[in-house]
């Protein structure tokens, strides 16, 4: 009997340890995180719609029904990435996430010059290089310095009512996400 109690006690202590280990390992090994879901849907540097409006089930749970969203995955070891979106919409906001889906930087249309979405994501090392000689066409861009390799860039845009749907859709579909040569 005492040995059984001993075994149970040992089991409970073990359960505590397994709990901590499993909890810390879930983010490492999850195949259902945003990055994995996006990589199943499309390639790096490909703009992907996150909402169900584009047809089919939404790739990543995009929460607000009054919003449309797109995402693109990038890898800063290939070089810096530039994101552009033309057009005028009531509200847009941008978030940069790291590989495990943590929001590391966000801004909205009030931050941008003339409310135009033009952003460059780059590592601090690349930033030093760019600062030395800033190209003409990057002068109005928002620079997001992110100490990461792989990441996700998400654009969200507000759809106040039915009539804005085509305009916001066009805004997101015409956005581009590409490697910037420097």
């Amino acid at each position, binding site marked *: 009997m005492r*040995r*059984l109690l*001993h*075994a*149970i006690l*040992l*089991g*409970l*202590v*073990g*359960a*505590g*340890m*397994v*709990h901590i*280990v*499993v*909890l*810390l390992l*879930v*983010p490492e090994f*999850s195949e*259902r*995180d*945003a990055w*994995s*879901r996006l990589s199943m849907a499309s390639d790096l540097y490909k703009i992907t719609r*996150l909402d169900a409006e584009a047809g089919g089930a939404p790739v*990543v*749970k*995009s*929460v*607000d*029904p*009054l*919003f449309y969203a797109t*995402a693109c995955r990038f890898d800063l070891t290939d070089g810096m990435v530039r994101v552009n979106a033309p057009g005028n919409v009531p*509200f847009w*906001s*941008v*978030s940069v*996430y*790291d590989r*495990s*889906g*943590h*929001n*590391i*930087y*966000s*801004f*909205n249309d*009030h*931050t941008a010059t003339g409310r135009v979405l033009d952003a460059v994501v780059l590592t601090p090392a690349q930033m030093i290089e760019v600062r030395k000689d800033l190209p003409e066409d990057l002068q109005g861009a928002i620079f997001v310095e992110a100490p990461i390799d792989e990441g*996700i860039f*998400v654009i*969200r845009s*507000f759809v*106040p*009512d039915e009539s804005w749907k085509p305009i916001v859709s066009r805004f997101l579909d015409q956005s581009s996400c590409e490697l910037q040569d420097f």
Partner: protein
Amino acid sequence: MLKNAFLMLVTLALAIGGGGGSVWYALKIQDGVGAIRIGQWTAFPDIGTPAADPYSKARVAREGVLALGRAEGLSFVAERDTAGEQLKRECAYKIEGGFPTARFWTLYAADQSLGVIQTTKPRLAALQSYQVLRQPDNSVIISVSKRPSPGNWLLSDGFGRMYFVLTFYDTPIASSTGLSDVTLPLITKVGCDA
């Protein structure tokens, strides 16, 4: 010999089963560490940031969430009315009160997964601040019901549990200091369909 093997098996089963099961349970429940409560509304300002606790991090990874950033907005979720009862899709509610400063806000009725509820009607079960009618004191009264109602009407339909999700966009309350003296609207039950 056989007894020893049995005891070892008990220990291992308890450790692995208990450890794994408790993580699964902790991630499943809606409530969690790092929540901020204002009336009936709950927000997780830290979710999806590198500063989040391990439970939020695991939940983000498991559900594939891409949480709103601080410059984007902050979401509040309500699962109970002022009487402390769970919100139900077959009931009518009134959401009434002032809203904190934000460029705009959206409100929608959600199901368990916090996606908007699917109704059989073309109208979306969502409202936003540019389209609502306001009282003289700038507060808002919203009727949540299956049937159309005058003023601001949020459609709800079907049966089962319901959540309200209220999101403020481009708001100063998303920064942690702003959350201390925020008041959010009250949710009161009006009646239920039997």
